[in-house]
């Protein structure tokens, strides 16, 4: 299980591997749908590295959305 977290001024992000995709998942994106900045942030989350988090309104993920990469990762935004 891959877990990545980061703390910032306004929000806390984490990405946790989920398998299978939960039946109630409503937001799904493939990693190719992320722009470069979001991709770098996602990759660092998955790798467990530190992410400098921006204000909540600038977070490029929806709370609970699933990002499809080499596994399925649920992103939590708190």
């Amino acid at each position, binding site marked *: 299980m891959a877990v990545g977290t980061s703390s910032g001024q306004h929000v806390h992000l984490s990405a946790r591997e989920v398998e*299978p*995709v939960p*039946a109630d*998942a*409503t*937001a*799904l*994106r*493939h*990693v*190719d*749908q992320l*722009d*470069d*900045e979001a*991709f*770098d942030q996602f*990759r660092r989350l998955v790798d467990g590295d530190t992410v400098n988090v921006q204000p909540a309104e600038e977070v490029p993920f929806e709370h609970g959305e699933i990002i*499809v*990469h*080499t*596994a*399925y990762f649920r992103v939590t935004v708190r």
Partner: protein
Amino acid sequence: MTESYVIIGDGIAGGSAAKTLREESPDADITVITDEGETLYNRILIKEYAKGKIPMEDPLFLHDEEWYEERDIDLELNTHVTHIDPDGHVVHTHEGDDYEYDALLVATGGTPRQLPVDNSDADGVHHFWTFEDARSIADHAEESEQGIVVGAGLLGIDFAAICGARGIEANYLMRGDCWWRYALSEDGAGIIHDALRELDVEPVFQSGVDHFVTDDDGHVTGAVDPNGEEFEGEFVGVSIGLDFNTEFLRGSGIETDDGIVVDEFMETNTEDIYAAGDITRFYDVILEEHAQNGSWDSAKKQGAVAAKNMTAADGEAEEFRHVSSYSISHFKDLPFVSFGHPTIGDDDRERKYSDTEWRRLTFKNGKLIGGVLIGNLKLQSAFKRIIREERDLEGQKDLLIEEDFEMEMLDAAAQEQ
């Protein structure tokens, strides 16, 4: 007078254009015409549906019919455009309807190419492009045990992954010595071959298909390669490329060259007609030549740029300037991305760092133009930035394949020169 815009095609290029047109032109008449029977869906993720990993359909739709209604966009499903009249600014459909336009966007993409061999249209031989294809593939894969995959490229490998996910033992028939030989050396491809074998998909080199074998009911039972070897399989996936959907443009005067030729503003050689997405052969301002690209991000941005230029005042056109990327996410813990133009160029560098990590970069006129990363994508964004910035890398190319490369190394090298 109200402006009128018509978009042919409702993939991500057409959908992106529709959204941008409405934002740029709140009062315009906008019509989207598609020959598919459903609204815009996530074409990247339908492969996960076919694998059985995402069993529900709803989250895979990006636009529902309400999306069009809320934006006052007229959506015409199941509608074939038969021809266009550039002089009269009219689009004609198979039902005899005419749609007048001030500006037209063609975003019709392509249709999977069939192998030119006997029985290539037999039951059980699948091509993969639409959601309907994904449903059909999913249904058949669920009940299949032996498979055959044809097409050693970025789309063909989706069929291999479907076989792997569905527990289908498969042979992957390739014409050359390795998968995606246009961009990968045997070193890089070897990593992918190992990953395929872990899925119970066996690469077969110097092979291909001479003809398919069928039973009395016309269902495929196997394939015979040009060497005369027969491979059994009731599930066959073929991805050997796309034929672009340009038939309705015949006689229109629009320039085509294995796709629709457009400039950096997504405009064709015909006034008020634009094109976007897979179907374009666009002028790449970084590469300084015409190029093609089948990635999602490229199509989405082309659609938006075309829409802005369809509504722009004279002299305010926006150019398409973009470095695309295309990931393969089928292999657990083995990320893969190709970016920019990894199959062309006048020079390249590559290095294998471990059994699961490899990097290849391509250059043109001393500048980075593309590459492939396997196993570690940490430098993906940095390399794309180097391409966008059009950095002169003469004398510094080897730095980029240092395992611990960082952007600062280029700056330091530049200062020393």
